[in-house]
């Protein structure tokens, strides 16, 4: 009861502080001094502290299982392990919105703090816009999705957290992802402020660059952790399903990746200013659109929270206001600039990267919203699945990888064609390696050949860059790491796709099944009673006659009590080069079990490659940090 009151008081205080920051910033704009008043800094510190306290009080409510707080009652249970009590705080709609506000607030404060070199009015207007965003979300939380609503009489026990969310990967997935796409709010505000104050060019680029890298790196990590969770938890044996909500996290990622490249052109050559601004505005707009699609419940996916249409309307209105006000300012300030860019220059290649990103973005956006459109317009339900994305995106990836290898070695302004022969050699080597894999291991489709060739091409040419770098000390290491890892990622995904083995059959206890060089035996079945669930555990023996190895796997069927749900836990034996994966499900009124066996090569390497892509981003931050502060 006390925590609920405290939370509400903190929320109200935060709203008041938000208004007062806006008021004081406007007042400060009229004062003809070069520095920002101390009071504004103080208010920002105060704001960040209070919002963190607010979140802490919700965490405490979860930890001590205070069921008078409705969010705790709906999403927790006193028997839950402590880690999942804490992660339960952001594993629901209300709590995760509070996390939104924390990130908005902290980024707002840090942006103010770390950009002291930039003009006062640019910083103040960024602060004002960011605080308008903060207020928008605070109002939403307070009036519509209040995590601190009280329940009277106080229930004795909570309803529990959805068991598939009780997973360590999922405990960190939302915070990482939020740092990514909510973090993009700060360059949305900065871009608006840049338009209003006409602060452009190199210095503007410098002020937002690190924030783009931060959000992109975290977004990458967040998507990765989500994929790992899907792979281990959802039991389909895949890691990317083109689920609408996965797509919602991918859309801002594309925009960020495009932005990360175009901002370099703005910094080095003072070109593409308006394009960069549009990307800044687009990234956060896509983030909010994604949130709208997920939270309003108009799309269905693993992420759907309990539905409430009023939420959708609120976010939609907020989104509309955001889009129209940014468009209004953009149209007012937009001037056509003749971009004088040579076709054979680094600028062109970065622009090409941007077009690719926008192409992916539009493809994924269309695929995601198309079912909504057909339902509204023709009343016809359709679903767009992997075949659409695979057909549209994959052929284009080939070209993208090749250009990604060539681009970074092109010079600014005007390039000469001296390294063409070398690229040809790399191309030939890549084709040879591909045919070795093709010939000695297993044949695969023409498209897969192209994908693997281009991935190897990118890997070799990035490795050569790495080699050159060691000889002359340049600041290009982070870029090479990210590009190289991206090459590896696509290579491993390609190999994984082509060398996977999947078998589906029904087995009774004691039976065995032979296929290729494997024998699978259903050895044992036992029932375990654990703290918050019962588990039917199968024991399977996999005998690999080619490598003479024996492995045991233990897939489970779990029966949770609070809330009562049945989940199928895959048993995964991860190895350096391949994973074995078994899921088992019972067949009603039969002593047969449906067994799904999969061999998935290079899973570990897919995770590692993706991790290094984002690692490149963090490395860039550290390097720049050393330079700038």
């Amino acid at each position, binding site marked *: 009861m006390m925590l609920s009151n405290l939370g509400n008081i903190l929320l109200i205080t935060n709203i008041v502080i938000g208004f007062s920051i806006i008021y004081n910033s406007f007042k400060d704009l009229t004062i003809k001094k070069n520095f920002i008043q101390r009071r504004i800094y103080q208010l920002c510190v105060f704001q960040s502290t209070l919002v963190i306290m607010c979140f802490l009080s919700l965490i405490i409510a979860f930890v001590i299982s205070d069921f008078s707080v409705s969010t705790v009652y709906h999403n927790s249970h006193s028997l839950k392990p402590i880690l999942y009590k804490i992660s339960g705080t952001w594993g629901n709609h209300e709590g995760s919105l509070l996390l939104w506000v924390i990130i908005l607030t902290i980024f707002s404060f840090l942006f103010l703090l770390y950009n002291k070199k930039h003009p006062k009015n640019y910083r103040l207007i960024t602060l004002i816009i960011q605080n308008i965003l903060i207020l928008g979300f605070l109002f939403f939380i307070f009036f519509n999705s209040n995590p601190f609503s009280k329940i009277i009489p106080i229930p004795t026990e909570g309803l529990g957290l959805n068991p598939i969310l009780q997973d360590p990967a999922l405990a960190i997935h939302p915070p990482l992802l939020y740092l990514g796409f909510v973090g993009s709010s700060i360059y949305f505000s900065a871009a608006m402020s840049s338009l209003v104050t006409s602060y452009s060019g190199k210095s503007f680029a410098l002020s937002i660059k690190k924030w783009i890298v931060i959000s992109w790196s975290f977004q990458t990590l967040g998507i990765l952790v989500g994929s790992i969770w899907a792979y281990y938890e959802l039991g389909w044996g895949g890691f990317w399903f083109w689920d609408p909500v996965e797509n919602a996290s991918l859309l801002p990622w594309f925009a960020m990746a495009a932005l990360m490249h175009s901002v370099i052109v703005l910094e080095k050559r003072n070109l593409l200013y308006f394009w960069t601004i549009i990307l800044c505005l687009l990234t956060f707009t896509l983030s909010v659109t994604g949130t*709208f699609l997920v939270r*309003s*419940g*108009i*799309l*269905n996916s693993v992420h759907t929270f309990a*539905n409430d*249409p009023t939420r*959708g*309307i609120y976010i*939609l209105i907020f*989104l*509309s206001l955001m*889009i*129209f006000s940014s*468009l209004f300012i953009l*149209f007012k300030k937009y001037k*056509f600039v003749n971009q004088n860019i040579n076709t054979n220059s680094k600028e062109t290649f970065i622009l090409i990267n941007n077009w690719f990103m926008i192409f992916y973005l539009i493809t994924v956006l269309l695929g995601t*919203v198309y079912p*909504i*459109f057909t*339902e*509204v*317009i023709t009343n*016809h*339900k*359709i*679903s767009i699945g992997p075949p659409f994305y695979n057909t549209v995106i994959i052929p284009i990836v080939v070209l993208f990888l090749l250009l990604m290898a060539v681009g970074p070695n092109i010079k600014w302004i005007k390039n000469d064609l001296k390294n063409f022969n070398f690229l040809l050699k790399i191309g030939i080597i890549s084709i040879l390696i591909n045919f070795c894999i093709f010939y000695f291991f297993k044949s695969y489709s023409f498209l897969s050949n192209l994908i693997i060739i281009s991935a190897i091409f990118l890997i070799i040419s990035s490795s050569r860059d790495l080699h050159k770098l060691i000889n002359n000390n340049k600041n290009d290491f982070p870029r090479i790491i990210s590009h190289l890892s991206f090459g590896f990622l696509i290579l491993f995904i390609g190999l994984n796709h082509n060398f996977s083995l999947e078998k589906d059959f*029904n087995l009774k206890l004691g039976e065995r099944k032979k296929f290729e060089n494997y024998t699978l035996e259903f050895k044992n079945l036992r029932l375990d009673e654990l703290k918050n669930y019962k588990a039917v555990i199968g024991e399977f023996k996999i005998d690999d006659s080619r490598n003479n190895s024996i492995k045991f796997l233990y897939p489970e069927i779990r029966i949770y009590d609070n809330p009562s749900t049945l989940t199928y836990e895959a048993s995964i034996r991860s190895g350096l080069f391949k994973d074995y994966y078994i899921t088992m499900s019972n*067949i*009603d*009124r*039969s002593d*047969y079990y*449906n067994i799904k066996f999969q061999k998935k090569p290079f899973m570990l390497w897919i995770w590692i490659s993706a991790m290094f892509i984002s690692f490149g981003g963090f490395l860039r931050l550290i390097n720049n940090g050393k330079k700038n502060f």
Partner: protein
Amino acid sequence: MEKRIFKLLIIFFIIFFLGVFFIALKKSSIYDTKDLVGNRLENINLNHFYEDKLITEKDIKNSDFILINFWASWCAPCRIEHPFLLELNGEKKLKILGVNFKDKNENATKFLNELGNPYDLLTKDEFGKNSINFGIYGIPESILVNSELVIIKKFIGPISAEDFKYIKMILNK
């Protein structure tokens, strides 16, 4: 002038997008098949299993009750409900429409030769796309509709002895 048209186009495009979202919000799209009871089946378009023709509402409407059964030869529980379907096949007021779901023709034919064919009309949905319109998650599932094609009941999972009794009761009412 050109610039203005371009701006207007963008604004129009965005309003269209947001408008669709707004309308979508008002539609319930929660994919819960339990709520289908009472709804009328529309836009039925199924491929005939043996012949190259489409089966639409007209072809199935001529009966008091229709049981639409989604099955496949690879589905073990489908074998369990099969005897009940065979028995229901004798009912005069009931027509059974089979939808062979994501299956191979030869396997399905073999299945029916082995266990008997309870279907008055057999169709196929090779890629599982048409079944989505019926709100099918997985199989076996069956839908009981009346002559107006209004859904009376949905059976998720194999038809049990109790479901069988229920269908009998409806037929005799």
